[in-house]
Each structure stands twice: as C-alpha cells, then as structure tokens.
C-alpha cells in the first residue's frame, strides 16, 4: 500500500499532501490567534480610559526582538533554497542561524517577562495608585501575600515616571512627567493598600491578554524551533536517502515558521505601540 502524492505534487492541484495539510493547519491557527486578537479589541473597546495602560512595554527591546525574528525568516528561506540547489552544508549553516534567532527571541522575551513579574502597582484605599518595585524585588506578590506575611509596612521604590493616563489621581513622587522625580523608597502602610499586584495576568485585562497572546506565541516559537532543530539534527539523515522528501519537510516547517513570525509582526504594534 502506498499513499500517492506524499513527495511529488498531484498534477491537478499542484501540491504535495503535506503542503495542503500545513496550509489548512495554518488557516486554523489564523482563527486561533484571530479569536484572541478579536478578544483584545473587544476588551479594549469596552475598557474606560483609565483602565487600559499605555507604554508599559519596552519598545527598544521589542523592536530588537522583531528584527531577530525577521532575520530568522530570511535564513529559513535561504536554508530551503540551499537545499533546492543541493547544498546541504549551507542549509545547515543558515538553519543554525534560524535556531539561534529563535532561542535569542525566547531569551529576550523571558527577560521582559521577568521585569514584569517584579514590577508592581498599588491601589491605595484613598484612590491613589502608584507603580514601582518592592524592596528586594520579589516575584508574584499580591494582596494576599501581604496578609499571609502579616506585614505592617511595604518598602516601595516608586517609578520616576508614571505611565498611566493622567486622568487617574496618583501618588506623589510618581506623577506624570515630573522631571528629576525622587526615586527614593517610600514606606506604605499595609492598612492603606487596597490591592497589590505585580504586572501579571491578574493585574488587568491588558496584562491578561498581553500574556495570553505572547505566551501562546512563544509556545509556537518553541515548537517551531524544536521541529527545525530536529530536522537540522537527527532527522537530517533523510537527505541522503530521500532528498526531495527532506526538502519538502524543510519547506513545510518553513511555512510554519513564517506564520509564527507573521503573528509577531501583528503582536508587536498592537501590544507595544498602540
């Protein structure tokens, strides 16, 4: 028994089976991310001005990461083209750049995540809000943590610049564009803290959708990197027995990789710039 068109294209469709498969899979992925992007729009449109933060993400780092992914998109095509020309060495060289870019992207993204997990916002009982860092930079504290640790006072380093839209009344020392603002620690009595949250999904719907979208994307980057690495390493021996089939596999994995990059091309402006 032999399934036709696994390697050669079917004449009337011009496609081999796996190519049809991956395009269908990507169509479904478009709907998955489409659902989340639609949710982003829905939540943002429904939010009032003060509830939707702006400028909390690091744009230079995001830009750099975008460049990293675009580079990998180029090398993945070059790798495939090298195979088409029969140059396996060049393929390996280009694909190793792709893998390094993928890992680099994930590394940079983890640093961004870490920064968020140690960055806090305090909602005070008198309606003021302040953002900054807790002494010792602990991760993932929330209101419940203060209760459990039975703390009386929180040593807090407010941000020199407060990022929220100016309609909100916020604490002194963290007000808008105030130049040369004090960066020294303040002591906040726990009794005055209504809510404490790091920049984690529970902080706000903004961070909720930010982490959902970027984490799902990061999982896709990771999956793509694993597939590409597997085809670079253990599965590459197929090149010797079935070069055409191997080249097809690189093409299919490359299509997936382009999709992952494309998602980021949408994520970056939506989350960082808008």
């Amino acid at each position, binding site marked *: 028994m032999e399934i036709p068109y696994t390697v050669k294209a079917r004449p009337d469709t011009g496609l081999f*089976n796996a190519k049809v*498969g991956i395009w269908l899979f990507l169509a*479904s992925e478009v709907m998955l991310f489409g659902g989340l992007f639609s949710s982003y729009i829905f939540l943002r449109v429904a939010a009032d001005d003060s509830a939707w933060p702006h400028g909390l993400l690091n744009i230079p780092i995001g830009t750099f990461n975008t460049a990293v992914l675009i580079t990998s998109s180029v090398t993945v095509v070059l790798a495939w083209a090298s195979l088409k020309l029969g140059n396996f060495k060049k393929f390996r060289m280009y694909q190793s750049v792709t893998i390094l870019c993928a890992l680099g992207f994930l590394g940079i993204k983890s640093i961004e995540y870490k920064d968020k997990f140690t960055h806090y916002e305090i909602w005070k009982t008198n309606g003021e809000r302040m953002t900054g860092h807790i002494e010792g930079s602990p991760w993932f504290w929330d209101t419940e943590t203060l209760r459990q640790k039975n703390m009386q006072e929180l040593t807090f380093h407010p941000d020199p610049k407060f990022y929220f839209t100016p309609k909100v009344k916020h604490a002194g020392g963290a007000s808008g564009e105030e130049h040369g603002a004090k960066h020294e620690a303040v002591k906040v009595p726990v009794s005055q803290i209504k809510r404490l949250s790091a920049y984690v999904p529970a902080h706000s719907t903004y961070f909720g959708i930010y982490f959902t979208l970027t984490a799902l994307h990061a999982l896709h980057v990771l999956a793509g990197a694993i597939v590409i690495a597997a085809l670079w390493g253990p599965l590459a021996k197929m090149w010797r027995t079935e070069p055409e089939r191997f080249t097809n596999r690189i093409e299919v994995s490359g299509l997936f990789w382009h999709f992952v990059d494309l998602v980021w091309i949408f994520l970056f402006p939506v989350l960082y710039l808008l």
Partner: protein
Amino acid sequence: MDASTHVAHAHPHVHEAHHEPGFLRKYVFSTDHKMIGMQYGFTALLFLAFGFFLMMLMRWQLAYSGQPIPVIGELLHSLLGDGAIGKDPTTGKLGVMSPDLYNAFGAMHGTIMVFLAIVPLAFAAFGNFVVPLQIGAVDMAFPRVNMVSYQCYFIGGVIMFASFFIPGGAARSGWTSYSPLATLAHPEFINGQTFWIIGMVFLITSSLLGAVNFIATIIQLRAPGMTWMRLPFFVWAEFVTAFLLLLAFPPLEAAAVMQLADNLLGTSFFLPSGMVVAGNPAEVSGGGSPLLWQHLFWFLGHPEVYVLILPGMGIVAEIIANNTRKPIWGYKSLVYSVFAIGFLSFIVWAHHMYLTGMGTKISTFFQTTTMIISIPSVIILTCLFISLWGGSIRFNTAMLFSLAFLPMFGIGGLTGLPLGFNFSDLHLHDTYYVIAHFHYVVAPGTIFALFAGIYFWFPKMTGRLMNEFWGKVHFILSLIFMNLVFQPMFAQGFAGMNRRMWDGGATYATADGVVGLPQSIIGMNVGISHAAWALGLAQIPFIINFFYSIWRGKKASDNPWGATTLDWQTPTPPPHGNFDKPIEVHRGPYEYSVPGHAADFTPQNEPEKHKKH
C-alpha cells in the same frame, strides 16, 4: 525512493501489517482508516449510551423531584459521595439527587452528546470509514495523524468522564459554560470546570487534526476520474463539515485558554468590574466581559450545529439514492446548498444571544442571516423529498430511518424559525421549547441518520447483515418514543417553563388560570420521563442485534444493496489498502436505473461501453 519506503523505515510494523499485525497494532494503534473509523464508532456509541443514561437520571429528578432514585440510588451514592446523592428526609432512603448533581448531569449530558458522541460518530467514524472508500483512496492522506486524532479524542473523553469522580464533581455551568458562572460556581481550585476545559482542548486538537486530514484527503487522494462533481454527496458533506471544524473550533480554544486563566490565574477576561460574589466585592481586576465568552462560544457553537447535521444529511442522501433506485434529485443544488450553509453558518452565531442586551442593530443583522441560512437547508430537504418521487422504494431498516429523518429534521428546522426571530425568541429563550427544537434536529434527526448509516454500512464493516425484523422493531419504537419525549416539550416551552430548573418547574407552579406554570404543563414531566425510559428500552433490540450480527449475522456479499459508489466496489471487509485493483472512475455517483443497462445500478468505476446509437 518513494513514499512507502519511508513509511517502512519509520514504522517497520506498518510494513509487516500486510501479513499479520499484532493485536495492539491492529486494534489499538492502528493507522488504517477503517479501523480508526470503527474505534471512533465504538467509543462514540459508548458515550452516546452514557449521555443517554445521564438524561434518564435527570428525567427521574424532573418527574419525581426529591424522591430517591430507584434501583441504582445507593450505587450512585457510593460512586459520587454525600454531596451529590442525599437521603430522603422522610424514609431515610439514599438516592436523592442534589441540585448540584442535576446541574452537573445537565452540563455533561450536553457536552458528551455533542462533543463525544454525535460529532465523533457522524463526522469521524463514518467519515473515516466511508470517505477514503468513496473517493477511491488507499487510506487517509496522513494515517499517523489520523491515529493521533483518535487518541486525542479518547484522552479528552477520559478526562471528561473522570471529572465526575473528582472532589466537587463534574462541570455544572451548562454545556455552554457561561462566565462568570463557570468561574464562580466551583469552590475548589482544580475542579470540574478545569477538567472540562482541559478535556475540550484535547477534543479540539482531535477535531483539528481530523479536519486537516479529511480536507487534504479529499483534495489530494481522489482516484483518477473522480472529479469534484462526481463525488458522492456524503463526501461533500464531510468536506464542508471539516472546514467548519477547522475554522470554528479555534476561537473556542482561545476562549477556553482565557477561561482557564480566569479560573486559575485570577485574570478577568470574562469578569466584569464591580462584581459582587456572595455579598462581598470580588477580588479581581475586573474590566472583562461576560459577553465576550458568549461570542467566542457561539462562534463555535453555531457552526457546530451544522457539524452535527451535515454528515447526517450526507448519509441520508446516499441511502435514499440507493433505495429509491434512482439518481438524487438536484445533486448540484445539494452541493451548492451545503457550501452556502457552510459559509453562512459562520455569521449567524449571535442569534443565541438576543437576550443579552447586545443591541437591536446587531440582533437585526443576525436575525437576517439566520433567516437566509434556512434557505439552503430547505433546498437540501426539498431535494431529498423530491428524490422519493416516482422511485420504487425499498423499505429496509436503513431506508426507514432515512425516511423518518426527513420530517423529523423538518420539524426541528421549522421550529427553529421562531427562535431565529428576535421578537419571538424573547419569549421562548431558555425554555423547553429550545430543548425540543434542537433535540428534534439532533435526536430524531441526526441520530436517526446515524442509525440508518449503521444499518447501511454494517455489512461493509463486518461482512454480515443486521437482522431486518429487529431493525424494524427498533425503528418503530424509537420513532414513537422520540416524539412522545420531545413533542410535549414544545407545549411546556410555550407555557414558559425554564429549561434549567432541577425541580421540573414545581417552584413556579400555580393554580390553572393564574400566571405561572399550570399543573397540566408540569404534569407532562411524568409522561415525558416514561417515554424517555421506554426509548432507552427500545434501544435493546438494536444493541443485541448489533453484537449478534457482528459474529452470527447473515453473510453479506460485497455489494448487498446494489450500490453505485466506490465504497461498495471493494472486497468485504475491505483489506488494508482497500481496493484489490487500481480504481478508475467513469461516471457520476448515482447512476441507478440507467435506461439500456441490464442491471438497475451502474458502479462509478464501470467503464463506458462504446457509445453507438
């Protein structure tokens, strides 16, 4: 080097499968589309029975609210614990269903029937077995993906089933899992809703892999000569269904991830600001939208309705053509209609949400599209009705179920119109009328089509025929009791009986003539319940017939129904690789009673004779 060499490299056992595969390879980790189809079929039939069983228990609660469940009350108590099954305060007898358990059964009945029974049976089981045969392919395009698809479905099913036995019990926020209820109704951290979401993720993965596989197979693996307009209608139905699954399910996956975050990470995707829970302000950021969940859910939910019905229509079309011994009337209309349905089903979802206050303009839009989508559905049904005209009909069991499908689905479809109109839906929303409506579509509709399909393809699957007499007994009893179950629910719905009341409406009982639920309406619960249990008994002839016939049924020839499509031009049961000779297709799918031919059917692979006139 060709493909088979590679397959042999990666899976040495597959190569050996030509000779004598081991038990595991043949029945459990099979990559053969026919075996996977039967795996889907058996598993889905088990879940169908389980979902039916949950319903029978719920019907006890509705008819005899607060009384202990007879016979199995104590068994249920030992399985589910004190929280779920209580004591009758007067007699002290164990077996009284708690409201929470009723809610869990309601939610899981819907989930199991839709996602674990009907879709896998209609789309995956029949699709897997029949589609590659009908298009003349040796297997699916991606056999290993096919196997993984079944395994994901199985794992998802096990997770759903296991959720009954965890602390707090299964999900109990309705099969729609509306937020914020789904986030707040379960006090435990890991709870039935968590299991429901994880289970759904597996089921969604399964149907994604299946859908990719079906579409790729139909596009790529059609036999030479099998042009698009020579495809049997069942293949078209599966093709469109696969697209619905491919594109409608992912947004629900996105929603499931967000609801999981709401439940476990404390986000507020679906939790509004200022929410008060049990008298205290909820400690969440707020800013989310319950409407968002409903939009994402119904974006899947409505195409899902057509996922349930389209394969059934395909099966019925095959059987009607075969048993009227004449071509389907309006084949092209059927094909275009099924495409129109597929497209339109993506833009009707918010007709489930008229009562949410999303706005009259949006309601008007969805009301319009909903009315438009009824047109292709009516075209399909009309074509099938007209196909009967002038046929010399063979009334075997498969045909009887198919014939019953037509009016039953007709009732289901037509009673949907008042729900599609905003103004009448405001009255009928969330009443038993809705239950009656969609059950007419799915139960005597799709399930009858599935029974028809089982009786029809059974000889191809097993090489033996099912018993016709007991098949007819099964049919007549099912038809009667189905109607006795669902017909009174229309009346209950008109009277305003809410669909989710665990006491069967007793809370709202009033004297006749006073606003509220009259006793005559509430009293129908008893009759419905008895009919439901009788319907359960009516399945016994089917179950016995099914298993008896697998081993002892009358031997069937390769083409016992004298059918034209390629699935009947194979050895029986079809071997690995399906066809014993290369297949070439020369004609359309339904060439029955062609003038000038000796036999009253002309198989698709029969070459044209010299055309001399």
